[in-house]
């Protein structure tokens, strides 16, 4: 429980980062910040995609598929945003300690999830077209 509390605290306490290691060349920190912003934009793109699916996609044959996909994309976007902070925090600490940057499986997992979703949607659209 203490571990979880400390882990969360790193996201909120500005001084906590500076307890670890040495302050690096500020350009590394800026690069880390830009990476974080890129992930936030990725999350926002997923939010936009989910909202677009909900509003502009005509109803598909499979009931609630459209809503399901919208909610899925929105959820992925929200999860991405949380993960973006965590990754920024861990990378910042690794930079300060002179360690290797933390390895990340998230980009691959995200790519697979989006690819699967896209394939399923393509199948649904093709089947719907074929049925008409």
């Amino acid at each position, binding site marked *: 429980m203490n571990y979880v509390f400390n882990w969360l605290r*790193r*996201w*909120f*306490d*500005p001084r*906590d*980062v500076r307890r670890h290691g040495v*302050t690096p*060349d*500020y*350009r590394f*920190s*800026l*690069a880390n*910040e*830009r990476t*974080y*912003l*890129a992930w*936030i*934009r990725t*999350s*926002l*793109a997923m*939010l*936009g995609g*989910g*909202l*677009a699916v*909900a*509003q502009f996609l005509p109803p598909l044959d499979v009931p609630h598929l459209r*809503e399901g996909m*919208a*909610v899925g994309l*929105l*959820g992925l*976007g*929200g999860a991405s*945003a*949380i993960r*973006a*902070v965590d990754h*920024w*925090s861990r990378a*910042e600490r690794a930079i300060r300690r002179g360690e290797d940057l933390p390895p990340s499986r998230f980009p691959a997992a995200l790519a697979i999830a989006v690819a699967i979703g896209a394939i399923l949607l393509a199948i649904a659209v093709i089947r719907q077209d074929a049925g008409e």
Partner: protein
Amino acid sequence: MTTRDPGLQPERTRFAWRRTVLTFAAVTLLLLRMALYDDAASVRAAIGVSLGLLGLILVIYIGSRRIKAMTDAEPVAVGRTLTVVAAAVLGYAILGIVLVLS
């Protein structure tokens, strides 16, 4: 001993913030449209529009502050600022899900 970067990294970070705020604005538009869907005079619409506009104002404010901070000598970001931005995105995701399901 670090040599001062004559403006490339701070400038790139400024642009990154501007792109992020713009993306946020675009998603806000979609969110507002979603909130006003069906019945523009409902409580659902009022709450959705208010929260969406609040989120956008918050992110614009944070972005402008970071952009101005880039002219400092060592403009290193603070964790809390970034967490607030991510919280705004998460808030949008939750609001979006609520609006889609309602």
